[in-house]
């Protein structure tokens, strides 16, 4: 998921102004600041790795779900908890260097509601723990068992709320090479795993009234300290669920030295195959500035090795997240060689 979001989090927090895509260059090298860097080959251990890794600079618990009302009306929700460390490690009380940020959104074809929460680590206002698993900021929660098999997800903003139950129908998927996900030709990488197969039921409260919804959810877990190369300005990220039961996670990192694409093909039985960099081709077809800067809202994706040639289109082109870091995030419909639904996130378009 989007690393760029966290770039310069600390600056955006203070100044409440939309943040520009800022390279990491200004922050000094990761090693200099004392942060850990992902190591190739280090195995992920659960439930420990469901919890926070304060020695890394950034981390998130990122859940998106494509939903439908009783009459088939499509909806989408997002629930994200970001962690950003001002310094490596954890401390009690106000001295904790950890900063937490929550984003929640509920999107339909005609409306897009979102909210944002910020909190300090150390005092109990926000955090993640295991045994049993709970991720929270203020009254927003994602909580359940330590295997992340059954979760309850809640959030509310000024004009929307949701309360959902998530049940995993497949195994966790380790992205990249056993969870080590390379993000640039220079070798920037993150730890990255997902649970892409939640069945979701619950209630969505919108200004028009409550809606009972069902659908599919996708959880991403990622942490790193230096996820983007200096030249990379933003990224486009896709999580797609096809009617065949197969799934595709793909991303395109935009850089001045050329784009870097990668991803994972997840078969219907949950078997994951990492894509070789460059195998996935993503081409913007149509842009919109419905709710902010101009962003591509229709794409053509090709993955020849899987005979995939699809067009994806935003359910609501105005799904702009006008939070302190502004970005576009919303549900998409898939047509072409494969059909289905998914989520699209695009960052770095607000420059």
């Amino acid at each position, binding site marked *: 998921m989007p690393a760029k979001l966290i770039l310069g989090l600390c600056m955006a927090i203070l100044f409440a102004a939309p943040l520009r895509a800022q390279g990491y260059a200004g922050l000094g090298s990761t090693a200099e600041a004392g942060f850990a860097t992902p190591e190739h080959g280090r195995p992920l251990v659960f439930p420990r790795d469901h919890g926070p890794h304060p020695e890394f600079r950034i981390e998130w618990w990122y859940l998106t779900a494509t939903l439908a009302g009783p009459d088939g009306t499509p909806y989408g929700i997002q629930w994200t908890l970001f962690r950003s460390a*001002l*310094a490596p490690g954890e401390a009690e009380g106000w001295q904790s260097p950890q900063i937490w940020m929550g984003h929640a959104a509920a999107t339909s074809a005609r409306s897009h509601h979102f909210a944002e929460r*910020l*909190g300090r680590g150390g005092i109990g206002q926000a955090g993640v723990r295991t045994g049993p698993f709970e991720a929270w900021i203020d009254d927003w929660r994602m909580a359940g068992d330590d295997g992340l098999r059954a979760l309850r997800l809640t959030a509310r903003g000024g004009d929307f709320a949701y309360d959902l139950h998530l049940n995993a129908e497949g195994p966790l998927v380790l992205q990249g090479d056993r969870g080590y996900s390379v993000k640039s030709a220079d070798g920037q990488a993150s730890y990255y795993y997902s649970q892409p197969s939640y069945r979701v039921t619950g209630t969505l409260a919108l200004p028009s009234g409550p809606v009972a919804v069902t659908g599919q959810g996708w959880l991403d877990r990622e942490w790193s300290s230096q996820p983007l190369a200096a030249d990379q300005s933003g990224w486009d990220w896709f999580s797609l669920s096809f009617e065949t039961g197969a799934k595709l996670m793909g991303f395109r990192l935009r850089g001045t030295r050329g784009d870097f694409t990668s991803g994972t093909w997840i078969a219907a039985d949950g078997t994951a195959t990492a894509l070789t960099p460059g195998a996935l081709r993503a081409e913007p077809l149509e842009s919109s500035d419905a709710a902010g800067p101009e962003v591509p809202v229709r794409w053509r994706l090709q993955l020849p090795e899987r005979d995939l040639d699809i067009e994806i289109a935003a359910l609501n082109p105005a799904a702009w997240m006008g939070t302190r870091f502004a970005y576009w995030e919303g549900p998409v419909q898939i047509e072409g060689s494969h059909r289905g639904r998914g989520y699209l996130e695009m960052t770095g378009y607000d420059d």
Partner: protein
Amino acid sequence: MRRAALLALWSHWRRHPLQLATLLAGLALATALWSAVQAINAEARASYARAAAQIGAGGLDRLEAPGGPIPLARYVALRRAGWQLSPVLEGSWRLGERRLRVAGIEPLSHPPLPAFAALAEDATALPQMIAAGGLLLAAPDLAADLATALHEMPGRPQVRASDQVPPGLVLTDIGVAARLLGRPDQIDRMLILPDQPIGLAPLSALAPDLQRLPGRAGSDTARLTDSFHLNLTAFGLLSFAVGLFIVHGTVGLAFEQRRAMIRTLRALGLPMRLLTGLMLAEVMALALLGGLVGLGLGYLVAAALLPDVAATLRGLYGAPVAGGLTLRPAWIGSGLAMALAGTLAASLHALWRAARMPILAAPGLQAWAERAARASRLQALAGLGLIAAGLGALWLIEGLIGGFALLAGLMLGAALLLPPALAALLRLGRRRARGVVAEWLWADMRAQLPGIGLALMALLLALATNIGVGTMVKSFRQTFTGWLDQRLISELYVTATDDDQGAEIARWLAPRVQAVLPIRSVDFTPGGAAAGQTVTVYGVVDDRSYRDHWPLLQTAPRAWDRVMAGEAVFINEQLARRVGIGPGDSLTLAPNWQLPIAGVYSDYGNPTGQAIVAMPSLLAHASAVPNRRFGLRLPAAEVPVLAEALRQRFDLPASALIDNAALKAQSLAIFDKTFVVTGALNLLTLGVAGFAILTSLLTLWSLRLPQIAPVWALGLTRSQLARLEIGRSLLLAALTALLALPLGLLLAWALLAVINVQAFGWQLPMALFPLDWLRLFALALLAAGLAAALPARRLYRLPPSDLLKVFANAR
């Protein structure tokens, strides 16, 4: 030609350096007083703006625990219940000998702060503030001190200077504040942020013990202090006007003296238009020079007065104002503009006359005087009109502006009426005069009147202002002192650190003193007629002390009995006047709490509304009433012993105990500071007026030679003439001073009964101070005598040949 003309014009000033100095001094004085007031006002307003932006949160409702601090866990619990809040921790921090106020805010949740926005470019700021040793923001002078003082501290916080932080405050992250203050798990209040999610449980259910206080309306300080600044501005304008009399006098003199030169230049072929243009340019250049000097002087005056003004504003309104002065383009601009515009206005008459002067005419003083006589009837009418307009303005315009319009109308109208009034008096004097010399003297004075009239108007205004403002201040002080004696009932006042300690102290004290009077209050926002006001409601216990001493202005029958029974309320004068209610009306403090008003009490402590009810009724209607302050009744001799015992027993800081005498002294000190500036401006204005008389007399000096020469030729000696000169000046000043007395008293009345009511909400009884009048009268005579001394000395030393020349020169 142009060069020659310029040289000729300039030669006049070269030959009359004193005149040039006078003109520049007049301009500089006028500009100085005006721009000093402007600088003070600008500085104070900038301070308010800074404070308002800094507490940007001031408009937000807040949640406080009546008893003292709130555990940090309560904040977390309310956040986890969904409420969007921002915690604040504040306290006093000792740094060496200094006590500083530390404000700890939580930067993630706090509304944006200008001081923090300045850190936007610095990626290391937030990590330093939260994760590393901390970051302290303070005004530049304090920041420098902090940096030095903290040098030794291990793991010391960084210090950054910021113009955006109010004076005396250290702004930092709440975690750093908690460390500095040694209060890791406490906060003092929570701001309730504007955007809240849907479906929240009400705070009254989640935290019934916390008190939700309404945010202050944005520009509270600005509104409260507006009257103060308007006062200063009015004073500045008055000083400016008085200064302009000097300019008018000098410029008029210069033109009179240059008539011959103007005639010559024109006869030589210099077009009138060019000459007028050159003279205008000359005047403007002088105005610019004088204005610049005035700005420099103004800066010095402002710098000298600002610390007192700052102390006043802090003491009276709690408005934070820095004691230091910064140059602001606004007041430099306004000062220069005023100097130029004022000079132009003061010189237009002279320029116009010079431009219309027939080339060959040889006008004399008498002609001028005759024209003036014709104008004087018009002037009297204009004066009456202005006074009427002032009264009309009071009637038509609401608030303070109307009050000041009345003052302006009164003062200007009276000033315009002065020459006709003096003329009438002089005519009377002449009729009663016996002897040739006396008759000449009276007649001569009348002839001089148009020339010196403006200076006398300046004197009138200065004297009347002195009497008026002096009477107001002294009346106020007398009333205030009496009120303090009455109001400060208790011998000793004690403040506990929290409610629990408060209760303990009260228990401990009960057997040791005659009475423990709790001082407990809560802010209410009433409905009905008083809607929109914030009223601080005090609960009082039934004690003889109140019944005997409380300063009531109006009462209904059985007032105290009814209030103590919870059946009625007392309100302060401010509230009564602002809302227009009094005994017989009722006050709706809360939807379910309406009480008839049993009395109105005077309250000179603050400009806000207050009410008093019986303690049990207050406690029944307010959920969280702090119980930390007490007044103690005991024999005065026992105060020191008890205070020491209290301090030891409860480990109270020195500031938590204050005895009656100290409190009184403190209050009076604040009061006196308030009027230091007024007094200083008063004296400066009088000085300027004295200077105006001097310039007028100097102006008249050369014009009068043709009139004195014949008298001298008829046998009066030069020393007799010089004595008469001084006597004439003294007489005119004395007459003016006599006329200034009623005007000053009228002004005092307007200040006490109109301006004070509008500005503060209280009306004060007027007291008379005849000794002050006598002193002022003597001062006026002294000023006039000194002003006349110079021309008299010249006259005395005048070579007789000069007097003879008068007959030789055809002027």
